């Protein structure tokens, strides 16, 4: 399996978690912080607020690096969820309770092959979304920038999510098994 972009970020984030490697963190920061800032601006923040919140998001990335599970999400996806939650606070949107995290304990690790395939699927999803017809891609972006309400979201998203969902489902089953 070829090592794609996704896997590179996984390796860097693991170095942050395991050895508090500031060079690895700097590489993640350089790539993701401006994207988080742009994401927050697109979501309605002004530049100063977006800068401050993007830094907050990167602080959370450092602190929670050890809880990242590469068999269930890409680093971009994980950072998206942190940025989304920060945006909800920032714009004083409705509270968003979450199901409790299912975490691997310190003794256990996700399966290496699960990580490889999930990261590869995530890379392919980025490519697939980039290739969607313009109109559909814009609707997806608007939804994730928080511009669409539930009733404005299409019943059929037309997103190719079957394979990545199955991968995550499998990884969840292994995690559940390790917990029992």
């Amino acid at each position, binding site marked *: 399996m070829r090592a794609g972009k996704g896997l590179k970020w996984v390796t860097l984030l693991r170095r942050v978690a395991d050895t508090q490697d500031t060079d690895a963190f*700097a590489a993640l*920061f350089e790539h993701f912080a*401006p994207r988080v800032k742009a994401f927050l601006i697109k979501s309605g923040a002004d530049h100063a607020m977006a800068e401050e919140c993007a830094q907050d998001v990167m*602080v959370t990335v450092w*602190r929670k690096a050890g809880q990242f599970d590469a068999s269930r999400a890409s680093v971009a*996806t994980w950072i998206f969820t942190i940025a989304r939650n920060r945006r909800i606070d920032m714009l004083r949107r409705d509270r968003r309770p979450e199901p409790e995290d299912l975490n*691997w304990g310190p003794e256990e690790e996700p399966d290496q092959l699960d990580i490889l395939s999930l990261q590869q699927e995530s890379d392919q999803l980025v490519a697939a979304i980039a290739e969607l017809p313009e109109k559909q891609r814009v609707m997806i972006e608007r939804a994730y920038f928080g511009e669409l309400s539930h009733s404005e979201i299409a019943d059929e998203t037309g997103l190719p999510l079957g394979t990545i969902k199955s991968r995550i489902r499998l990884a969840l089953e292994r995690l559940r098994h390790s917990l029992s």
Partner: protein
Amino acid sequence: MITHHLSDKLLMAYSTGTLPEAFNLAVATHIAMCDECRARLASFDAVGGAVLEEVSEPSVTMRADALSATLARVKAQPPVQRKVAVPPKDDVIPAPLRDYLGADGEIRWRSLGGGAKQMVLETSEHATARLLFIPAGTAVPDHTHGGLELTLVLQGAFADEHDRFGRGDVEIADEETHHQPVAEMGEDCICLAVTDAPLKFRGLIPRLAQPFLGI
């Protein structure tokens, strides 16, 4: 086994963070019980990751001192250590919902008459969430829906003309839905019901009762 799941629409809206609090609560509570929807949600989060990866604004850069300022902050806050993993408990009230009960975790039921009870949960005014207690074998009053309504079964089961809903199942109803769910015999039914509009009851007596429902 859970057979009635959340819609793609609801999962995507939850992923994008735009649902009213009451709906967020219902989605989170279902996912706490349903790994299939947990995986589906993760796939919608992956779409968010893809959007973040592709959000290109060459004009947007971080301030020159941003990295050093962030590193200074993280030096003061060491990484969180991985906790001992504990399998979540399979309680009647899953974790996301527990925060909405009193500090003692007790459900403060108020009688609706005929053995039925409810507890209205405190959420934002954009939608209403309440726990419903329907005695085994009892019908929920026939009603139509002005907006979107989710009913998530936490204990027991109910059935209407079309389907059966057991623990973890979620019924999604809208303006088109007219139904008369009945709680199954054997076990009292407890549901989390959320709606973005007041319920409209169709019979005379339930209509009189509506003000007491507090919704």
